[in-house]
């Protein structure tokens, strides 16, 4: 024993271990996605050219789309391409998939981040407030609201927001995205209703988790020690409770991200936002599987990445992970 400074080696080893598992997850996930899409019946080339196409035209298109090589090689080409930022060519539009995704990402990603920020900003204070008033009217009110919030489907909530704030009050547009070229605030404005409808139901879940995690911590011995030092309930809660309670809450934020992502794809439908969701549903109906494949891979990648970041955040919050793993 002699590590007085934060143990750099342990921290590095921890990160490296997480990174390895991130890479393995990505590799396996890409394989699963590729295999599932490969099962798809029908040949994209024949589908695109219709039933009356000449066999040699189909063969030419197959070569153009890269469908005439063995499957394992196509998998490697696909993965290799993605690593270089080349997601292939859309079967339908004959344009690079990377470009199509890139455009949509500028809507979906800001939306998810906006919603995540909102839901955290609402959930943390609400959860902490409820925990500090356990059993009192304030707690009961917050818990009642969250119980309802958990039960509301976000896309229905979105429709109600449109009905109230766009159709009746005319504060916002009912849908569509003005584009970031119209200015940052204009962009934010058109994402506000979608973000709120995503964030509130998420916030309800997060607030419940924050509250119960904090209540667990309040029962810990060290909270009693803090009180014995002369800290008031409130001081003890803020100085000793919150940071410890964050450890389980972080896990939930990581897991919630996948719900947020799925939610945003659905919400895009309500607001006619030109995001990844719209792209993927259009591609499904036109059987543009290469786009579906790439979007799904991107979604899965972001979930895995967020959970990796959460694992790193643990180590920042919890010194026990920094020194021993």
């Amino acid at each position: 024993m002699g590590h007085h400074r934060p143990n750099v080696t342990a921290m590095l080893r921890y990160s490296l271990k997480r990174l390895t598992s991130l890479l393995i997850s990505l590799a396996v996930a890409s394989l699963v996605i590729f295999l599932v899409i490969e099962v798809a019946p029908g040949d994209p080339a024949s589908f695109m050219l219709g039933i009356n196409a000449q066999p040699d035209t189909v063969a030419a298109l197959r070569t153009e789309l890269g469908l005439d090589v063995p499957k394992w090689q196509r998998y490697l080409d696909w993965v290799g391409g993605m690593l270089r930022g080349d997601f292939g060519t859309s079967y339908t539009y004959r344009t690079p998939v990377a470009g199509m995704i890139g455009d949509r990402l500028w809507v979906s990603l800001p939306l998810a981040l906006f919603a995540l920020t909102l839901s955290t900003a609402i959930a943390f204070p609400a959860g902490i407030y409820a925990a500090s008033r356990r059993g009192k009217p304030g707690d009961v009110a917050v818990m009642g609201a969250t119980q309802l919030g958990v039960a509301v489907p976000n896309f229905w909530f979105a429709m109600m927001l449109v009905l109230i704030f766009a159709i009746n009050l005319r504060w916002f547009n009912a849908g569509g995205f003005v584009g970031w070229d119209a200015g940052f605030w204009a962009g934010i404005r058109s994402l506000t209703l979608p973000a709120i409808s995503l964030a509130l139901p998420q916030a309800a879940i997060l607030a419940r988790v924050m509250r119960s995690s904090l209540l667990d911590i309040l029962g810990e011995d060290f909270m009693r020690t803090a009180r014995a030092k002369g800290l008031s309930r409130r001081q003890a809660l803020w100085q000793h409770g919150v940071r410890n309670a964050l450890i389980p809450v972080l896990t939930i934020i990581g897991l919630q991200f996948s719900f947020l992502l799925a939610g945003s794809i659905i919400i895009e439908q309500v607001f006619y936002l030109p995001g990844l969701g719209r792209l993927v549903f259009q591609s499904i109906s036109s059987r543009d599987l290469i786009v579906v494949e790439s979007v799904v891979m991107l979604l899965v990648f972001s979930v895995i990445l967020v959970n990796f970041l959460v694992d790193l955040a643990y180590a920042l919050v919890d010194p026990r992970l920094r020194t021993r793993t």
Partner: protein
Amino acid sequence: MSLLSIENLSLSIHRFDILADVSLSVAPGEIVAVTGESGSGKSMTALAVMGLLPDSASTRGRIDLDGTDILKTPEPGMCAIRGQRVGMVFQEPMTALNPVKTIGDQVAETILVHKAMTPAKALDRAREMLDRVGLPADRFPLSRYPHELSGGQRQRVVIAMAIALRPKLLIADEPTTALDVTTQAQILDLLKGLVADYGMGLLMITHDLAVVADMADRIVVMRNGEVVEQGPTADLLVNMQHPYTRMLFAASGHQVSLPPPPAPVPLLQVQNVHRDYRLSRTRLFGDPGYFRAVNDVSFTLNRGERLGLVGESGCGKSTLTRAILGLENIQHGQILLDGQPVFTGHKPNLAVRRKMQVVFQDPFGSFNPRHRVDRLITEPFHLLVSPPTGTARQDAIAEALTAVGLRPQDAQKYIHEFSGGQRQRIAIARALITRPDLILFDEAVSALDVSVRAQILDLMAELCTAYDLTYLFISHDLSVVRTVTDRVLVMQAGQIVEAGETADVFTNPQHPYTQTLIAAAPQLPDLEALQRRQSHV
């Protein structure tokens, strides 16, 4: 003039009476020990003084701390008192510190809450306090986190926090119960030294009468929320008035007499056993390294013999126990029971397993809460080639329950209907039902109150006569090992450092570690000698 005086304190929670008319006082520089068994209300008394009772508690009476009535002081006033005029040390040092803050910050916090000063100055003060409690700067910088310290070291940090502002009164609630004997002795010395240096009053809550007799100036004995007797230590020890006090002291020093062991025939042979655990890597690509929990241990346990295994936590006795039970593999050497190896890979060798049973420490965790007693105690029948059924099974259950002092009707009950002592009897019944050759008692009486412990020890002695038991008694409690074993092994850092007849080892320990261990263990004074001396005067 007393520093703390509690007058007729009564306390109830949800109309459930916890304390009734408790009165006691602590003078500056005085150590007052409150003792009693679980449920006596001793810890609640301490929390009442701190003003940290649960919200649902209602109180009557008066707690006067140096002129302030604690029960009438509103919460902000109490916050100013806690930490500044009265400090508190808790039982469980492993959980008493915030795991995500450094020890320096946590000690400095006591100071910062009460005194306006810069954090840097508070940290300087914290440094002084940590030095005072025996955590020098070179090995224990302020930047250490609690998980990097041992239990005893953490308890020193808790003490440093409690005394950082030199409170006039220190409350210590079972401060050494979770610690090893050698650590316990050091912490008790530290507390005594602080009381002497600072002239603090110390209100100490403990169930351990040997500690009480050793430390206290005055003793308060509690039972079921009432003070049954109190007085200056010397007087009370010599002249106990209340039968409960007498029973408590008698049970603490309870001795049993075992039948003489038969001629030695080896039953369990442990030969040059090594048990290694892999450690996590210390360098990025370095060798993981190993921790040798059990290091070259050899001994023989003869049929009909009662062997003790003592050692402090982390000495490897639990690992050795699991290895003997055949639950874990060993890296070197062999363990033979009746000539056959106990570990046979993933598929246990039932022929060996049926020759031994075990009784664990925790009377609450030892049973599946969803099964009735009959199913619980017949679990070892799984080991038999043809387990008894029907009436034979009923008879076996009845016999086992009767043997441990319970009734055959108890077979239909669930485990939550029994007290801790009764559960330990059921655990013994489960161990006995297949009449194994060997029973392992793994800290089997450590979680019990002294009066219950005395009963279980009596039961073991009776069973030795009735069933010719052979057992290995694993414990950290020297006084218990001394009375229920014929021979004893002393274990330290994975090795057996001393072995011999129990009486010899205790009266004439050879190894320095054994000597330290025995010297550190608090001893009940010889009451009879005290009383005799008193009557001569």
